[in-house]
């Protein structure tokens, strides 16, 4: 081997060694990087390529393309035309400008159903699909201008838009176009786009509940993008709205029918057990069992059942309040104190539902549509503040105001109520109750309330009411047995058989110290400077004469005609 040959050999080995090392390490590096990337590879093919390039070029809805690229559709090669395809004569068909591509402007549930048939069918059988009804009825249309209804009521109630192709619904109300993200659909704020505000503050109730609180604390660690598979464990540790109302777990299939697990019609003026599609979905007990099965993924069965039983009694209690409201407005109407709106012989309001121009009608409406719902929905979804202050407290206020209005307008019965000094005057209706609550035994909680203490037959009356509700089918056999279990051992559940007086006395002492401090610090304090307004007849409180004179003097100096000319 000559020297040249050796040089060639060395050169070849050197070049190829370096080339292989450099190129292959870079290739390995690129591949390693790809394996850490979570962004999937998107391929745009066929007609979609034309859509994307033309839209990008013309700058029309370019963001929609980016959003689509994030979607599962893009990963699975489902492109623009798969959803936007149209046939001649379709209500939304049009030719894309400068092209021969016929597209549908509004993909409807009919289009979605080509792949997601089950979901679309489930949705169509849910109360979400029934929301157009409210637009049709439009009870506010006489109270507010139509243009506000367009962007007010309709924006949310469009979730059940009835399309010219006769399909019902708006899938992207929850799955935003064009990502159609599961994670966004599961985000509580998605439901909260509509389920918010004074009439049904569901997002507020959720966020004030323990569920919402834990969700907020942990949401960054949770991936809401999971596929909810039938008979699989719920993969997140705290529920969002969708978890309870839609997701599947070990025992429940997932569903797009949000009504499949609801036992009440508690948005209505009266709380009544749902009969929504019960031939398909089963009666309310079956729907409740579905919901309980989800709750029991995390909670003990007895906790869940007691919690719901208590919330059910809140719903029933609401009806008794409403009965009193209805009694009063009907009476006032009968006596000619309030009147329905009328034109051309047709009535445009209803005193028990939606009157607008008289105080009792407003109170009546709010007691159902706002505080009445808050009271009930707060109870069923762990929003204590909504059951209490935004709920029953305002309901009771409405009732007091209504009766007071009647008294002011001469109703003798109302006057009698106003003049009554008996503490039970605020309970002009029968009541429901349950011994204790779902969370524990509290020996101190049940010693003070007026009714417990002053009516020996308190629990007898409650027993009769609960039993009657059970016999009417408003409570299930299982619930009645659970209630009886507590009733028969109420000293335990109420905590009255336990003595925690020593603890009570300790805090009583602390209370006394607090009260004393409050009295000493502020209650008995009187400031030396006099107030400016003194409501004594004939005396006008104001600046002292001396001060007035001084002020007048200065003004005269300032504005005297001479001062300016001298």
């Amino acid at each position, binding site marked *: 081997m000559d020297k040249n040959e050796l040089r060639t050999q060395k050169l070849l080995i050197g070049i*190829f060694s370096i*080339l292989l090392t450099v*190129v292959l390490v870079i290739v*390995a*590096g690129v591949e*390693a990087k790809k394996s850490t990337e979570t962004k*999937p*590879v998107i391929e745009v093919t066929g007609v979609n390529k034309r859509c994307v390039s033309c839209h990008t070029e013309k700058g029309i809805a370019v963001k929609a393309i980016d959003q689509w690229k994030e979607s599962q559709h893009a*990963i699975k*090669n489902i492109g623009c035309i798969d959803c936007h395809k149209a046939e001649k004569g379709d209500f939304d068909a049009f030719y894309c400008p400068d092209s021969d591509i016929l597209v549908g402007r509004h993909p409807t549930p009919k289009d979605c159903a080509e792949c997601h048939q089950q979901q679309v069918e489930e949705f169509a059988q849910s109360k979400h699909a029934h929301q157009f009804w409210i637009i049709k009825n439009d009870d506010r249309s006489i109270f507010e201008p139509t243009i506000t209804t367009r962007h007010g009521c309709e924006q949310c109630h469009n979730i059940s838009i009835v399309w010219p192709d006769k399909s019902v619904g708006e899938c992207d109300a929850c799955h935003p176009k064009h990502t159609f993200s599961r994670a966004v659909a599961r985000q509580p704020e998605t439901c909260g786009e509509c389920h918010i505000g004074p009439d049904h503050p569901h997002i507020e109730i959720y966020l004030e509940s323990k569920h919402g609180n834990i969700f907020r604390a942990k949401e960054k660690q949770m991936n809401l993008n999971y596929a909810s598979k039938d008979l699989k464990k719920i993969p997140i540790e705290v529920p969002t709205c969708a978890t309870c109302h839609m997701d599947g777990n070990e025992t429940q299939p997932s569903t797009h029918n949000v009504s499949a697990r609801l036992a009440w019609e508690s948005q209505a003026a009266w709380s009544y057990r749902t009969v929504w599609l019960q031939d398909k979905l089963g009666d309310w007990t079956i729907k409740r069992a579905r919901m309980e099965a989800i709750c029991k993924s995390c909670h003990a069965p007895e906790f869940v059942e007691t919690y719901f039983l208590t919330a059910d009694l809140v719903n029933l209690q609401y009806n008794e309040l409403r009965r009193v409201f209805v009694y009063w407005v009907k009476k006032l109407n009968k006596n000619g104190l309030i009147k329905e709106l009328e034109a051309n012989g047709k009535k445009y309001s209803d005193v028990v539902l939606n009157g607008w121009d008289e105080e009792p009608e407003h109170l009546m409406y709010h007691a159902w549509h706002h505080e009445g719902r808050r009271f009930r929905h707060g109870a069923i979804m762990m929003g204590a503040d909504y059951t209490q202050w935004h709920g029953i407290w305002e309901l009771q206020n409405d009732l007091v105001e209504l009766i007071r209005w009647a008294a002011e307008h001469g109703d003798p019965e109302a006057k009698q109520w106003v003049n009554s000094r008996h503490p039970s005057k605020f309970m002009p209706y029968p009541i429901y109750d349950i011994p204790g609550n779902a969370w524990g035994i509290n020996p101190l909680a049940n010693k003070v309330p007026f009714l417990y203490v002053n009516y020996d037959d308190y629990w007898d009356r409650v027993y009769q009411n609960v039993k009657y509700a059970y016999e009417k089918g408003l409570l299930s056999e299982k619930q009645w047995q659970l209630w009886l279990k507590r009733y028969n051992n109420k000293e335990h559940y109420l905590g009255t058989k336990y003595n925690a007086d020593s603890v009570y006395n300790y805090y009583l002492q602390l209370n006394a110290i607090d009260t004393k401090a409050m009295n000493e610090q502020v209650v008995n304090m009187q400031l030396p400077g006099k107030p400016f307004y003194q409501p004594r007849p004939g005396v006008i409180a104001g600046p002292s004469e001396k001060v007035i004179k001084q002020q007048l003097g200065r003004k005269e100096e300032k504005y005297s005609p001479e001062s300016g000319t001298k």
Partner: protein
Amino acid sequence: MNEKNLIDFRKIKQAILDEPIPMHMKNWFYALGVTPFILFIFQVLTGILLTIYYVPSPELAYKSVKYITEEVRLGFWIRGLHRWGSNLMVVAVFLHMVRVFFTRAYRRPRELNWIIGVLMFFITLGLCFTGYSLIYDQLSYWATTVGTNMIKEIPIFGSLFLHLLRGGEIVSVNTLTRFFNLHVIFLPTSLLMLIALHIILVRVHGVSQLEGIEDDEVYKFYPEHVYHGAIIALFLLTVMSALTVVLPPGIGEPADPNVTPLHIKPEWYFFAIYFVLKYVPLKLGITLMLIFLIIMTFWPFIDELLRKKFPQVKWHYILGSIVILLFLIFTVYETVSY
């Protein structure tokens, strides 16, 4: 026989440490044979550490790899070393083969050692392939699926091999346990034995001289050549650690046999084969591959025949360069195309 003669340490020392090494081996390009061996040792050590947490079951494989990568202290480093070690081992084997091929070090009497080397190369790729499949994320699951699909195309025994490897129709729990066994027991043990045989044969034949140029001088295996190895080991550890930090091992979505990703591809060392199989009819592709493997395995004899027939043509330069260039082009094409 006295005790002194029972074990003659001096002779053993001489046999192991005083092996004469030709002077040309001081050039780094000629000293890369030890690199795959060093990497193999690293792989064994990091592999043992990984098995402490790894669970070879479809439910837990992905989770345990994720746990190793994200939770275990220094887990990402160990996994990174193992991953980069496997990548570099393939590169190191290539480099060693380039040197051996272009220097025609496979020539008589070392034909058998070349064949053993080729076998070790396949086992290395087998280790990489089985190791990648153990991650059990979408990429790895479907790479395993397409990888094993290729086996089916092997004439006559294809279906049998496929069934034997997968333990069923699809990649499943049986495949995972079989691959785990192959990856941690069968293949490493085989490789270790072949490495031993390879080194013994090197020692028996002596380190090969450059063709036509006998080095006048030699130096002893210890200390200089041993230190060469030590430097390479430290260098590799540094490089692998750096690569792990810059490009840490990732993990994708968990494997889902029901969802086929849009693009499935094997690990990069199979890109060239994948490229060929993609662009020529499958049967033809498999046949080409088999022909290539046969030529590669028996190259020392083929080369000898060719040299006799065409003494002027440097077949090994021509073929070697073409194969390397094609390999690089196909690999890079597949890398940049997705």
